């Protein structure tokens, strides 16, 4: 069996799990969580079979891309395939999804219980988790944009359902709505982009679109706007990507999405769903590259996001929100890499980031689960109460900050290399600032959470090390965080079966070799260390008065940062002043013109007519027979007259 030819099995397994849980989850013992965990485990195991056969093709020189599947809708001129692509980018994503999904599934069996008692809707949580895994795998494996879009919306739906899992809390409901609506804005753009590309190329197939874009055929249509058409389509796609990946100005939903259960944050809002935007751009990067200016837009958005989110993270006190802004910032790093055309590097950072960020989220979840407190200002001194959690959290933070030899260092360093290779020193320097900021806020978070004196005695009393089902994923992900960075090396790649390391493996569109440069590595490592030291200088122990001094030195700027640059307020203002009046006009039009006049008026007319006409329905059969005969006679006479 060539596993890669049957990659549909990967999404099918969690889909079946979802159906079973949806139908019978309530009645199954333990809410059927073992089914979800089993499905995730099966996906994790089967992934390696698929990967092996994919590597076999690569080794045999059979090409890196294999499309499998069947026609879903076929109207000759409109073909949608239920097709899956097995290639290196997809493999990287599937690895991330499978690994993190398995860990999160295991973790959730404990996290979703309080003192051993499952929460309400425990079965529903696992059902949606399975559905999410199925949708995410479909998304990454889809070989055409329409199927991808279906899955894209599917994961959005799961995100919505899981953010709003605690729907008894008003804030959770609001957050779910916000996430849904905000990403929907981007999704509209994505759909428009898909339709525009379909209109220009007549296909949804990603390979067809890339080929058409590279051949310049997208511009050949007489009715299209030439370069403008391509730019519009591409930017529409990027709109979707930015919405899903929470790039400025769509970043506002992601921090609020932390209202969901923490494992959900780890899986969906750190490791998998939010990187779907990165994945989409990576997939279609050739299109972006032939589009004038598109790469620059990607680069600019990524850079701005990385900087702004880094600053916002600095001023947050909620552990999960810090991590959320950190995610946004790191996604910005990935877009920067994409903006300079380094797909492999972006995917590499995606890979490493997925593991350490998932580990960080799960670690914070461990803290929250045990202390029932997620405000960093009330925590502190936890490291000796929760040593495993603390050490994994610290290691992951170091990885995020980019200190060698952990995985984050390698991936971030490569982004710098690629940016400098793109011959833009200013961008590299700004990115360096962002990297410094990430080291700074991570160090700050670690310091005020795990070190220093305990600030709340009730919290510290509750704090204990968590159960093994929580710790095993933490340790596993920490180990991965240690190891995964080394896949960048040629030797490691050779040993694992993809010669030339991951950058060569993700050779699409052309191989990028790993340019490990001592000088750049020294600079980036120094920047990260500097960030750590600065954090130590400002936040360690009694040093925190220095942070206060900084805040008082520029209170206006501090307020701007603490209020997240007033993005939410600006949106609220826009909604109140522009959207709602417009909506009122539209609503009036809809109610008065469309509904009352257009729909109800004919209905009322019919009803009044019927009210009077009903008197001809006498209920007496002879009258009906009479009408019948009259009708036949008239029809016959008419036919007779018409034929002359």
């Amino acid at each position, binding site marked *: 069996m060539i596993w890669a030819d049957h990659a549909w099995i990967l999404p099918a397994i969690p889909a079946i799990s979802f159906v079973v849980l949806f139908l019978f989850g309530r009645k199954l013992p333990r809410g059927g969580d073992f089914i979800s965990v089993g499905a995730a485990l099966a996906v994790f195991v089967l992934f390696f079979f698929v990967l092996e056969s994919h590597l076999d093709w690569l080794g045999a020189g059979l090409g890196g891309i294999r499309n499998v599947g069947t026609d879903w809708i076929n109207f000759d001129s409109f073909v949608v395939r239920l097709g899956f692509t097995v290639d290196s980018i997809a493999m990287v994503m599937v690895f991330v999804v499978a690994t993190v999904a398995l860990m999160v599934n295991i973790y959730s069996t404990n996290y979703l219980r309080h003192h051993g008692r499952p929460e309400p809707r425990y079965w529903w949580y696992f059902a949606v988790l399975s559905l999410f895994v199925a949708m995410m795998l479909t998304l990454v494996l889809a070989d055409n944009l329409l199927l991808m879009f279906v899955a894209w919306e599917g994961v959005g739906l799961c995100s919505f359902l899981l953010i709003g899992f605690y729907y008894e809390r008003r804030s959770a409901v609001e957050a779910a709505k916000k996430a849904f609506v905000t990403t929907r804005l981007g999704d509209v753009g994505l759909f428009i982009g898909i339709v525009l590309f379909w209109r220009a190329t007549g296909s949804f197939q990603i390979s067809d679109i890339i080929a058409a874009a590279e051949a310049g055929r997208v511009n050949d249509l007489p009715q299209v706007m030439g370069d403008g058409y391509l730019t519009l389509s591409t930017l529409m796609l990027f709109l979707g990507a930015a919405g899903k990946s929470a790039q400025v100005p769509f970043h506002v939903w992601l921090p609020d999405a932390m209202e969901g259960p923490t494992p959900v944050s780890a899986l969906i809002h750190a490791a998998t769903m939010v990187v779907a935007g990165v994945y989409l751009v990576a997939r279609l990067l050739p299109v972006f590259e032939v589009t004038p200016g598109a790469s620059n837009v990607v680069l600019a958005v990524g850079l701005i996001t990385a900087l702004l989110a880094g600053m916002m993270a600095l001023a947050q006190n909620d552990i999960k929100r810090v991590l959320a802004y950190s995610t946004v910032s790191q996604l910005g790093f990935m877009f920067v890499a994409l903006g300079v055309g380094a797909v492999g590097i972006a995917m590499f950072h995606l890979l490493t980031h997925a593991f350490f960020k998932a580990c960080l989220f799960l670690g914070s979840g461990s803290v929250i689960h045990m202390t029932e407190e997620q405000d960093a200002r009330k925590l502190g001194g936890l490291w000796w109460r929760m040593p495993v959690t603390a050490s994994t959290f610290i290691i992951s933070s170091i990885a995020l900050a980019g200190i060698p030899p952990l995985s984050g260092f390698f991936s971030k360093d490569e982004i710098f290399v690629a940016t400098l290779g793109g011959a833009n020193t200013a961008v590299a320097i700004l990115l360096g600032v962002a990297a410094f900021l990430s080291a700074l806020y991570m160090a700050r978070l670690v310091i005020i959470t795990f070190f220093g004196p305990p600030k709340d005695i009730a919290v510290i009393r509750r704090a204990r090390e968590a159960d093994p089902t929580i710790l095993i994923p933490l340790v596993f992900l920490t180990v991965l965080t240690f190891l995964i960075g080394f896949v960048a090396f040629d030797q490691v790649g050779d040993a694992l079966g993809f010669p030339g390391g991951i950058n060569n493996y993700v050779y699409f569109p052309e191989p990028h070799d790993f340019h490990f440069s001592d000088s750049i590595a020294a600079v980036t490592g120094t920047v990260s260390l500097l960030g750590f030291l600065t954090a130590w200088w400002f936040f360690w122990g009694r040093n925190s008065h220095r942070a206060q001094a900084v805040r008082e030195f520029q209170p206006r700027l501090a307020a701007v940062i603490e209020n997240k640059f007033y993005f939410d307020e600006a949106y609220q203002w826009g909604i109140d002043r522009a959207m709602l009046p417009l909506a009122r006009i539209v609503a009036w039009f809809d109610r008065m013109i469309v509904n009352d006049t257009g729909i109800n008026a004919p209905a009322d007319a019919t009803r009044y007519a019927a009210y009077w006409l009903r008197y001809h329905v006498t209920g007496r059969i002879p009258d009906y027979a*009479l009408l019948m*005969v009259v009708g*036949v*006679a008239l029809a*016959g*006479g008419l*036919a*007779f007259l018409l034929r002359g």
Partner: protein
Amino acid sequence: MEDGVTATQVVFWILAVVMLVSAIGVITAGNIVYAALFFIAALAGVAGIYLILTVEFIALVQLLIYGSAVVILILFALMLTRARERPQALFGRSRPLGIAAALGLMAALIGGIVATTWTTPESSSAIQPVGLQTIGDAIFTIWIVPFIIVGVLLSIALDGAIMLASPDEDDN
């Protein structure tokens, strides 16, 4: 036989007149039993025209089924519904309208018939009598499935009629 009126045509017109007059009797008779008796006369006229058209089989089936069975059933129904004991107006309210509509129908039909050019054999003597064997062959080969279905339908209808007409459990 080529031109002029043949004996068959004379018989046909006599039968037609009898048939139509009887039919008018059916729809105008002031007594239901008279209507039924006129109906028999009309049926006999139809059967006679069948004979003229050389399909004796249909004529005899017509007599056998309509002439005895159906008419007897109708007379039974009249007796069961005590038509005689409850004299009442036999015409509905919409009588003029009904007459007008039917006349309109008749006009439309006749107009259509007259206006159409019918493809008929050159001379009427070319018309061959349709033999019984031909009909039998048609019924039992081409039309065997409809024939069987009609048989089943008849049985079901008769069972249904028995069910309908039989008294309820609590009728007595």
